[in-house]
Structure formats: structure tokens, C-alpha cells
């Protein structure tokens, strides 16, 4: 079981170090950092590879997750289940975040006593104890010092940046925060986050597509009342082969929302889920994922990408990239960045944005032979084009297409979800009269691996 838990900064400074079993050497933190920093450098040609989350060095097993600019590391001597230990340190990080509101190096440094206190309650002799945030409340005595972060413009910590800033600020408050001026604000946040993976082949045909979604909740409801969350009534779960709904498109009842599979947080009570697609739960304090789901069924990719390459003259090639936003005009894509590697022989690439297109920047990175095309905002339904002139060091590049691409696109679309999964309602059960907390339901679609091949 866990012998030691250490929190390190990305520069390798030990911020927190808690020893539970006293059976690992004193220098484990340094050993860990050296290993991770120089991973792959020992074996030829493998430098730059990232260290796996679990490795062994001199008889000590190191497990780590990297989050919020920090390494959360556990060391163990036994052959304990890796998932158990990784999940546990992830939970440690989550509890710290619940308590402090946000997670960063600064936050941990300012609250290190609180963090030690939490670590003592969360883990005893290397074994995970009761880790629920509301249970811990009665055993934790240090109060969190909140760190006010000045969000850099355009690099907001929240994915819901533009139109829900106030809500985003609210979600970064501590679970134990004392009410200001005696006003308690009961509220609950439900975020439906969908990550889209799409691969188009060279002719724009959809090779693979998948949505990985999750329903995240963050509850600040006093007294932890039961709630009921209702999803689409036409939701069907099961893979294509087994699903009775397979091939059901176009039948009278309309199109069902098909999920390949889903899983739930342990607080979810699924008695009625099969009958009416509702989930009853007692929301624990703090942030948690109520449900993860995944679907590979057909959906409309939010962006289409077209490319064309032509060798126009010796030493010169021309590349045209078009991006089309295929979502409703009322929605906007933000943080949209398109990247594309160019042939090794490229010495220069000059980019020309189409006429009348504003709020866009392009960059040619010579060291990595890559162009980058960034948009502040893309409105639904709009078309954009970029013309790139490549200067090549060779007269002809025989396999110019093989050496280019793939085009990768990253984006965030707020208040839009591709799968059509919705929270129909969120009901507070057995509530007292007049109790009507704020309920925020937000949707967002993000790119995961959004690729178009050349």
C-alpha cells in the first residue's frame, strides 16, 4: 500500500511530503523527479517521451498524476493495484480543490497545513479512508486561505469563459467557505461536457467519430437534499450489436439518442433509470462526475475541414485550408486553433487569410515545421479559408502529401452539445416550501482528437 505521498512543483520542489509507512528511502522525491525529467534519455532515440504514470526504480513503485501544474506522487513497495492508488491520489487532489476552491502551486503552498491535515484524514497507514468531502468537514480544523487568481485574458481557467463568467467564479469557491454577510447562496452546477474525437480521411470522409461525455456536478446545497436528474426520454444504452434500437433510425418514434455505454458515480441511484431515464442522488459536497458516457453513433461533426495541396512551380507549393463551422448560428466556437505540420523541406510558409476575415492570426513555426491558424471566435455556419505558400528547399518533394498533416483542430463551443443529451429537469426532492436554490445547467463541446488527414 501507499508508503508516501508527495506533491511536487513542475520544477521539482517538494511542497508536501507525507510518509505513511516509513519503508522507502528519504530521497524518493528527487529520484522521482529525475526519472520523470529525463525519461527516455537513457535509451537511445527515445528522448522526449513522457514517463508512464507508473514506474519502478530501485524497488520503489512510483505512481503519479500531473494536474494544475503539480505532480501528485505516491510511492509504494507492494504490488498494489495501480488503479486503486492512482484513483486515490486523484481523489486527494480533488478534495484539496474542494477545500481550497482552486488548485495550483500557490494554493498548496499557502494551505500546506490544511493539506497535511487532509492527507492525514484521507489516508491512514497507506490505506484510503473515508474520502467524501462532507464527512471530512467534521474532522478538519484549519481553514482554507483562498488565493485570488487574476485570470489572464483569453486564458481563463474555466472552460465556460465568455458568457458565464460569474458562474465560473462561483464554482471556484471552497466547500467550507463561510457565508459572506450572512447570506448563504445555495446553488448547484451541472455541466455537460462533451469531448469530440473525429478523423476525416483525405477526401473528407468520416473514418472514426466518437463522443466522450460526462455530467459533472458541483453542489453547494446546504443539508444535502436528494435531487433527481432527468435525461432524454429516448436515451438508449448499449452497443450497436446488442442494442434493440440498432437500425431503428427513421422508424415512427423518431431518432433515439444512442449511447454505447455509460458509468456512474457511486452516489447515483439508478432504480428508475431504465424506466424513465432519471437518476436520483444525494449530491455529496464538492465536485464530482455523476455520469460518464460514450457514443460512436452517428452525429454531425461541428467542423468540416478541407485541404488542397498543389506543387505550382519548382520549389513552390500551395496549400489551401478551409474550415466550415457546422453548428447553429446562435452558437460560437472559441479558442479555435488549427495546426498542421508541413514537409521537412519547407523553408518558409507565408499565410494569407481570406478577405473580410477578422480576429484571426497565423503563425509559421520553423523549428517544428508547423503552421498554426488561430481564431478568437467562430460563429456557427461560417466559412473560413487560409492560403499558404510554401517555399521548399527541394525542387520537387516526391511524397508531399505523405509528409504533411494531419490537420488537427482544437476548439470549445459553449452552450452546445453534439450528442443532443440534455438534462430535462433537476428536481430538489422533499424540499421545504420556499427552498429554491440556483440550478445552473451548462453545456459545452470540446475537441479531443479532431483530425483531418491529407
Amino acid at each position, binding site marked *: 500500500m501507499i508508503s508516501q505521498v508527495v506533491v511536487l512543483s513542475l520544477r521539482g*520542489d517538494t511542497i508536501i511530503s507525507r510518509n505513511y509507512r516509513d519503508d522507502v528511502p528519504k530521497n524518493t522525491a528527487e529520484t522521482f523527479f529525475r526519472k520523470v525529467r529525463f525519461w527516455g534519455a537513457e535509451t537511445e532515440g527515445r528522448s522526449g517521451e513522457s514517463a508512464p504514470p*507508473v514506474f519502478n526504480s530501485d524497488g520503489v513503485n512510483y505512481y503519479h498524476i*500531473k494536474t494544475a501544474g503539480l505532480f501528485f506522487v505516491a510511492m509504494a513497495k507492494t*504490488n498494489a*493495484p495501480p488503479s486503486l492508488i492512482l*484513483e486515490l491520489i486523484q481523489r486527494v487532489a480533488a478534495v484539496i480543490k474542494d477545500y481550497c476552491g482552486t488548485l495550483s502551486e500557490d494554493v498548496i503552498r499557502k494551505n500546506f497545513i490544511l493539506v497535511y*491535515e487532509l492527507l492525514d484524514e484521507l489516508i491512514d497507514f497507506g490505506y484510503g479512508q473515508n474520502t467524501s468531502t462532507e464527512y471530512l468537514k467534521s474532522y478538519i*480544523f484549519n481553514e482554507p486561505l483562498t488565493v485570488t487568481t487574476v485570470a489572464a485574458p483569453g486564458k481563463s481557467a474555466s472552460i465556460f469563459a465568455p458568457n458565464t463568467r460569474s458562474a465560473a467564479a462561483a464554482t471556484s469557491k471552497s466547500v467550507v467557505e463561510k457565508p459572506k454577510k450572512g447570506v448563504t447562496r445555495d446553488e448547484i452546477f451541472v455541466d455537460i461536457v462533451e469531448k469530440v474525437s473525429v478523423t476525416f480521411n483525405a477526401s473528407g470522409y468520416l473514418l472514426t467519430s466518437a463522443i*466522450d461525455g460526462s455530467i459533472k456536478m458541483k453542489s453547494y446545497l446546504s443539508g444535502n437534499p436528494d435531487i433527481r436528474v432527468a435525461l432524454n426520454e429516448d436515451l438508449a444504452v448499449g452497443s450497436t450489436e446488442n442494442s434493440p434500437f440498432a437500425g431503428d433510425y427513421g422508424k415512427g418514434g423518431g431518432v433515439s439518442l444512442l449511447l454505447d455505454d455509460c458509468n456512474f458515480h457511486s452516489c447515483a441511484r439508478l432504480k428508475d433509470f431504465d424506466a424513465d431515464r432519471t437518476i436520483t442522488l444525494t449530491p455529496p459536497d464538492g465536485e464530482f462526475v455523476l455520469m460518464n458516457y460514450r457514443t460512436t453513433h452517428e452525429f454531425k461533426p461541428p467542423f468540416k475541414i478541407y485541404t488542397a495541396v498543389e506543387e505550382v512551380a519548382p520549389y513552390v507549393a500551395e496549400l489551401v485550408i478551409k474550415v466550415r463551422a457546422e453548428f447553429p448560428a446562435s452558437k460560437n466556437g472559441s479558442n479555435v486553433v488549427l495546426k498542421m505540420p508541413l514537409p521537412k523541406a519547407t523553408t518558409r510558409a507565408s499565410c494569407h487569410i481570406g478577405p473580410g476575415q477578422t480576429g484571426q492570426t497565423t503563425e509559421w513555426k520553423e523549428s517544428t515545421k508547423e503552421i498554426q491558424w488561430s481564431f478568437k471566435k467562430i460563429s456557427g455556419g461560417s466559412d473560413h479559408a487560409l492560403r499558404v505558400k510554401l517555399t521548399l528547399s527541394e525542387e520537387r518533394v516526391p*511524397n508531399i502529401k505523405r509528409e504533411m498533416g494531419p490537420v488537427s483542430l482544437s476548439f470549445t463551443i459553449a452552450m452546445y452539445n453534439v450528442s443532443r443529451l440534455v438534462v430535462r429537469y433537476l428536481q430538489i426532492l422533499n424540499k421545504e416550501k420556499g427552498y429554491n436554490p440556483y440550478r445552473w445547467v451548462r453545456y459545452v463541446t470540446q475537441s479531443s482528437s479532431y483530425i483531418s488527414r491529407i
Partner: protein
Amino acid sequence: MGDKKGNELGDLKTQLRNLAGSQLKENTQAKRDLFKKIISYMTISIDVAPLFSEMIMATTTTDIATKKMLYHYITHHANSNPELALLCINTLQKDCCDVDPTIRGLALRSLSSLRVSNLLEYVTEPIQRGLQDKHPYVRRTAVLGLAKLNAMNPEMVSDLDIMGSVRAMVLNDPDAQVSANALTVLTEVEGYEALAVESFVTPILKRLKSYNEWSLALVLEVLARYKVTKSSEIYDIMQNLEDRLQHANSAVVLATVRVFLLLTLPLPEVHQQVYERIKAPLLTLISSAINEIAYPVVAHLHLLVLRAPILFATDFKYFYCKYNDPSYIKKLKLEMLTAVADSNNMYDIVTELSEYVADVDVPIARSSVHAVGQIALEAPDSDNIVERLLLFLELGQEHITAETLIMMKDLLRKCPQHKPAITQALSFVNHSVVQEPAAKAAMVWLIGELSTEDPYVLEDLIETFADEESPDVRLELLTACVKHFFLRPPETQKLLGAALAAGCRDSHVAVHDRAIMYYRLLKHDVRKAQLIICPETVSVSTFTETHSSDEIEQLFQQFNSLSVLYRHPGFAFASPEASPVTVAGPAEDRTPAPAAVQEAPAQPPVQPAMEADLLGDLLRNDPPADTDASGRVQRAPVRLESPSKGRICATCALAAVAHPHLLPHDSRMTIHHELPGGVFLAYSRPAAAVPHASDCQHRCFRWPDAV
């Protein structure tokens, strides 16, 4: 600097003394701040141990936050100050009887974490009292205290004769965490096996729902060891656990999957259904979790895929790499794609893999080439795939060309029918581009093997023979020259002469020895030399590098452990056996250990009468010392062995008995015999002379083809 630190410690001491006796309210905050400072020093490894006695003087505090910091300090420093630690026992014992359960629990936790062996006598009594406490917080701490005691002094725990009541706590304590901690103690003291009995498992199953996810993982581990007596029980347990597969916590899901898989081993049909049932939950975990959490799940899926690739053949698209997958996940996915490739999905998979070859991440690009080659090797009718593989050479990128050459070599060894295609492709390779030793060695071997290849390319390479850094390449060059000599003696005689001369001058033992051996073989009888060096080639049926089913089965037994990630059985790296074997992690190549184990039976100690005679002859005929100018006289006795299935053929015996001095120094000669394929000579250097076991094995396997 030292002075400054000294002063600072002095300051802290004074401040501690000033605050020590004070019970004033306004001093609480000052105390908290002071303690905070000391603990922050502790974290950055500044030695604050000298403050121990002052800290203990400050124990009389009622503020819990301060108390916690103090106890944190004490548990951290007690075992380096055993005498002084005695001073805090009194306070801790008193706190163990406090009215506030939080303080009782806290004091008990600290007391049992002191890790000072001569203070243990003070610990047992409060623990025993804590086990009877009204409050679950104290009981759960007390029971874990037993595990801590056991780690320090197991006899003390057995003297307490308390495991019976701990068992009762597991089953009867109303608090689930107390029950789980009691179970933890039992697993540490008695081991999992002792708990996996019906009288224990059945009642635990009844309260399964009350455990939190961490405790559940522990309980499931016990269940996984349970041997069911009747098959109805299997279904009962599975029914009981089925909803755990929908859990968002990967630790719970993997532990449940382990139970399902091990339970159903005696029922092959159900076992296969379990495979179908667990696919979706595992894939959901992989796609929803952060990369670090997904990694062990992918590694376990990888094991299942290798164990039963057919069951995953239609799921191949799930193993496609995402653009943003980290390399440790991509690598596993590539291997899964290779494993599930069959005649139906092969072309789709190879098309996808061909895209990854352009990956900017060099190891991934190489692994993708490797995967395509691997699929070509396994596919019976792989013309199209070989074509795809050979096309990679046209990309003209060094690392891709290198990996492709290596795969071409394996391909030719196993599937000689691709000789024309490989010959043609090789002629397009710009030989000067290939620099990497393994790839260059493969290329030279190919040149030697493909008779149509122009021997003059070898001339350039022989010219730089002495500058060639890798002995592997030099070895291959020697062999390639000899092979070409047999084909066109007049044209290549000069070349061969130059090669052998350079080889004999070589400072590397193996290269030097091979050159001498060729020289003498040729001098003795060119025709017989050809028989030995260029026998009729027999294609390799399987490569031992691929995972053996025994190895996979062994790892499968350790499902849901590090073994699966490291691809090593647990005893190789983890305590309690605590063998400090270094395992560099999963990024390392194929495990040498299991491969070596497989290698062993290939050389059985069977020594029929005739061979015994040969052996005697050999030992008497010690090789002459004439070649040994450099003073390398230490020679291991040469052993001659034959595999059990055959008798040594005439040529072989002739070569070995008549000319024992042909055998390389310091080496063991093994004669593998396969009729009618020809004679196989393999020699390997004794393990002590080779830094890595894999090196030794490698040579064994390469030789049958090279000679």
C-alpha cells in the same frame, strides 16, 4: 549560511519556550503560526529535529489545529529521538481518553505511528481500549493501529491474541470503515488466502453495498482468491457484483473484472461471456478518465487482448490512436492493433497504422512500422501488406527506413516467398543513410542473403570496416562477404580477403573469432565450409520475442496489479519478498527473464553415448593458443550439446570433432540439428561475459540463419 540557520533554530527555540506554558487565548494564533513555520521547514528538509524537546513542552494545548501540527511533528521525528519521544507518551495517552472522539482518534493515530520499538508497550493498551470505543472514528483508527504494530513487531500482535475479535469486527461492526480497516489488518497479518473462505466471504458479500470505493477494492481482492465450491455460487457472486462494472472508479471496475474473470475460469463459455460483458465498461473508463488513470486500464485491456485476440477482432477501431494520446498509451494501442489483426480487418488496420508512420514522435513512428511488419509476418497471404511496408522506404526518413529494414530482415527469415519484392525494395535504399547499428546490421544481412544484390556495395562498407562502431554490423559484414564469395568466388575473392583481414585485426572478441573461424573453415575445405555457413535456409516458424501464452497466463493470474503494467510477475519487483530487482518500467523492451526461461529447455542435458565421446574429445583437444596474442587466455571449456530430438549428423560432428579450434574462444557451442534442413550451428557466449542476458539469447537466435 549554516550560522543563519543555527540562529533561526535558536530563535524558534526561544519562541517555543515563551509560548510553551501559555494557555492564553490570544497566544493560540501565535502558536499556530510558529508551528506552521516549523512544519514548512520540515517539508523542505531543513532539520528541525533539535527542537524536539521544546516542541514537547508545548504539548499542553487545547487548540486542535495546533495539536494536529504538533503530532505531525512528533510522528515525523520520534524514531530519530526515541528517548525524547518517551516524554510525549504521557500526553498522547491522556489524549486517548479525552472526551472528544476526534482528539481520542487523533492521539491514537499519532501514538500508533510513532514507530519507536521500545515504546510499543505503551501503545498496545490504548489500542485495545480504542477497539471498544463508542465512536467509529476511534475504532477505525485503533484497528489500523494493530496493522502498524504488526509491521513493527508481529509477535506482539500475536501475543494479544486478538484476530478473532478483529474478524468479528469485519462482519459485525456497524461502521463500514471500521469493518474495512479490520479487513485491512487481517490481510496484512494473515494474508488474503486465509480470508477467502466461505464462512467469511458470504457475510461480507451481504454488506458489500455499505463499503466505499477504496474498501470495496480490498474486499474484491479477497473475493478474487475465493474458490467456489458449486457453480451456482459463481452466478450469485457475479449477480451481486454486476452493477459495480458501471462504477466510475476504475479501481472498483478492474477489481470487479478480476473477480469475474478468475471465478469463471472453470467455465469456458461463461468466461467468454464475461469478456463480452466487460469490454464496454473498460472502454468507457479509457475514454472518460484522464490519461494517467486510463493507462492501467489500457494495460489490462492489452493483456486481455493478447490473451484472446479473436474476441476483440471486431473492436479494432477502439484501439486506433487519438492524436493527443500520450506515447505510453499509443504504444499499447499499437500492440493491440497488431494482436487483433485478422484477415477481415487487416487492411483497415494497416491503412490506419500507415498514417501513424508519419507521427512526429519518433518511437511511435517506429512502433507503427514495426506493427505493420508484425502483421505481415503473421498474415499467411500478405503480399499487399508487404507492399505497404516496403513503401515506407520511399519516405526517405532515417528512422522509418531503419525500422523497415529490420522488419524486412524478419520477413525474409520467416516468409522467403517475399524475396523478389524485398530484393527490389532494397535496391532503392540509399545505403549511406542507414547509420543505426541494428538497422545497418539488418541491411548488411539482407545484402548477404539476397544473392542478386550487387556485391560491390559491400566494398564501400568493407573499406570503412575498422571505423564501424557496432560489432553487430561488423559481424554481419563478415558473413555477408563470405556468402557472396560462395556465389561468385572470382569477383569477390579480394573483398573477402579484405574483410577477413580486417576481422582478424578486430579487437572485439566475437568479430575476431568469427573471422578466424571463417578463415579456417574456408582453408580446410571450401565446400564443407559452404555447407556449414550457407546451408539450405529453413524459414523460422515463430519468433520467441512474441509473448508466450505461459507468460500471458502468469500475468493474467496477477490481473489488477503492477505486474500487468511492467509485464513482469510480481515477485520480480515488489515486497514483501522485497527483492530489490530494478525494473526500469514498462518502457523497457521485452522482458529478458521469461525469454531466458524458455530458452533453457532448448538445450536439454541429454548426452547420449556418442555425444559423450565427442565431449571428451573436445575437452582433450583444447584449442591452440596461437591466435591469442593479446593475452586473452581465460577459456571456458567448450561444451557440445545436441537437442534431444536428433542425432548429430556427420558434417557437424566432423566440423566439431576434427577442428575443435574452429570454435570461438570463451564460448559454448550448441549444435542444433534439424534434418533435412541442414546443419545449424549456434554459439553463445557464457552469460558472465555478456552484460545483458538478452544479448546472449539474441545471438543464439540469430545464428541459425546467419551461419
